[in-house]
């Protein structure tokens, strides 16, 4: 199939179905809550959540907090990409390092790093850096592991093409291994960003500091359930923005697979 036909065959149907399903879900919840089948002290009716948006935006300075969480995610994301990819490359390059560390990195991926927040508080104080560093460490393993996977997965014949053209080791890396690994590395970064966002909002909530996580903590303690859910919507917005930006970067780096 050519690019032109691929473009033409993109119909609005999937997007419409997605939005439709979401609307249907909210409508169903509304009915369930209003009819008393779901306790409204656990789940507020969606209409009330949407109604509280104005209040959350004006009274709780949600945009400032939104920006704060966004900045923390962005910082962690940049660090993640730089150190995660570099770590993966080094581990691929030095097999001993890979054999020594790969299992540990994989173990770290499933460790509940968020529980180590007291340690980070001691090191970085009650500041944005505690939050950023926790997001960073929690999200590092998938980036490292996917970088290794991507580089090792480079097809043998492409490496041989490079050798047949007498590429230097650095050309071999930048012109063949790295571009070939890029799609897999992006999978790692995407996973990493999910981990980072979860941890960042979680730590904000736990140490009651800064952005959207703290707001959720506040609202929950005030038992403002509708406001809590409205704030959660803003967390989702952060992740949506990140994924859209990431997709743009990926398309720019590698237009077609």
């Amino acid at each position, binding site marked *: 199939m050519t*690019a032109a036909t691929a473009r033409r065959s993109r119909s609005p149907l999937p997007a419409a179905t997605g939005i439709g399903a979401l609307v249907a879900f909210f409508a169903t919840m509304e009915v369930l809550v209003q009819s008393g089948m779901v306790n409204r002290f656990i789940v507020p009716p969606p209409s009330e959540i949407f109604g509280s948006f104005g209040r959350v935006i004006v009274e709780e300075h949600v945009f400032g907090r939104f920006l704060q969480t966004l900045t923390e995610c962005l910082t962690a994301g940049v660090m993640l990409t730089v150190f995660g990819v570099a770590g993966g490359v080094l581990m691929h390059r030095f097999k001993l390092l890979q054999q020594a560390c790969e299992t540990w990195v994989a173990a770290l991926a499933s460790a509940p790093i968020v529980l180590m927040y007291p340690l980070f508080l001691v090191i970085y104080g009650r500041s944005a850096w505690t939050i950023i560093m926790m997001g960073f460490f929690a999200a590092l393993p998938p980036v490292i592991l996917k970088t290794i996977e991507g580089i090792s997965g480079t097809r043998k014949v*492409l490496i*041989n093409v490079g050798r*047949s053209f*007498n590429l230097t080791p650095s*050309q071999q890396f930048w012109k063949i291994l790295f571009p*070939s690994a*890029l799609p897999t590395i992006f999978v790692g970064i995407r996973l990493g960003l999910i981990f980072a966002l979860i941890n960042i909002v979680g730590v904000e909530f736990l140490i009651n500091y800064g952005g959207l996580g703290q707001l959720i903590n506040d609202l929950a303690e005030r038992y403002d359930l509708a406001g809590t859910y409205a704030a959660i919507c803003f967390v989702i917005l952060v992740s949506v923005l990140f994924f859209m930006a990431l997709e743009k970067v990926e398309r720019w780096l590698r237009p077609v697979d």
Partner: protein
Amino acid sequence: MAAPSSTNNAILTADHINVRFETAEGPVIAVDDVSFDVKQGEFFSVIGPSGCGKSTLFNVIGGLLSHHQGTIKVGGETISEPHKSIGMVFQEESTFPWRTVTDNVAFPLELIGMEKAQRIERAKHFIGMVGLNGFENRYPGELSGGMRQRVSLARTLASEPKILLMDEPFAALDEQTRLLLGDKVLQIQQQLKQTTLLITHNITEAVQMSDRILVMTYRPGKVKRIVDIDLPRPRTSEIVGSDAFGHYVAQIWSDLREEASRGMRDQEKHVMDEGASS
């Protein structure tokens, strides 16, 4: 048997090449004492049943394999790593999926530091040569298998190798595409007076294109015979219908059939053994 006729105009010489692999089932002799030479401007083919050691030989000549015995010389110079005079086209799909057709073909030009405008111009020339005009800005993922193989060929040609070395470049294509691409290669070879070493298992392809054909035996991979193909040039795929052509095909097939059936029996036995042991 086939001692290298050490003529002065040999551009490539393979001298007593031996390659063995240590495998779980013991050593396999993939190439056994293979010697030949290729002359300047010649189209030379190596033919043999699959598994006889053709790709191994390809890798040795290309400098990608170094644990062989014997020597490969290019213009009198013994090689131990990929030599800039040899351009390789691989059997597997080998285009870079992240580069457009132009950027794929311009790859070797980029390596020598040619400036952008000039290398796009050069790449365009080779893209035209393999008949892919109009596809310059497409990505390999948008092309058919035959077109991708032509991109690989153009990329190798762009490095202007003294010797074009190809390992079953059309093996994965259907018969019609293969014949037409064969025409293209012949046309290019005549146009550039390109010295070419083609590795193939296809008799028609070998006879259609070659000046000489080396027939390999199966396990160990030895030289069975080197056949001179005395057909007029320029050739196209139309030659396939001629009597002389049929005669050469029959001759090479009689050499090969013995080897091919030995190869088949060997592989069947292998499957049986595995079945018995499991």
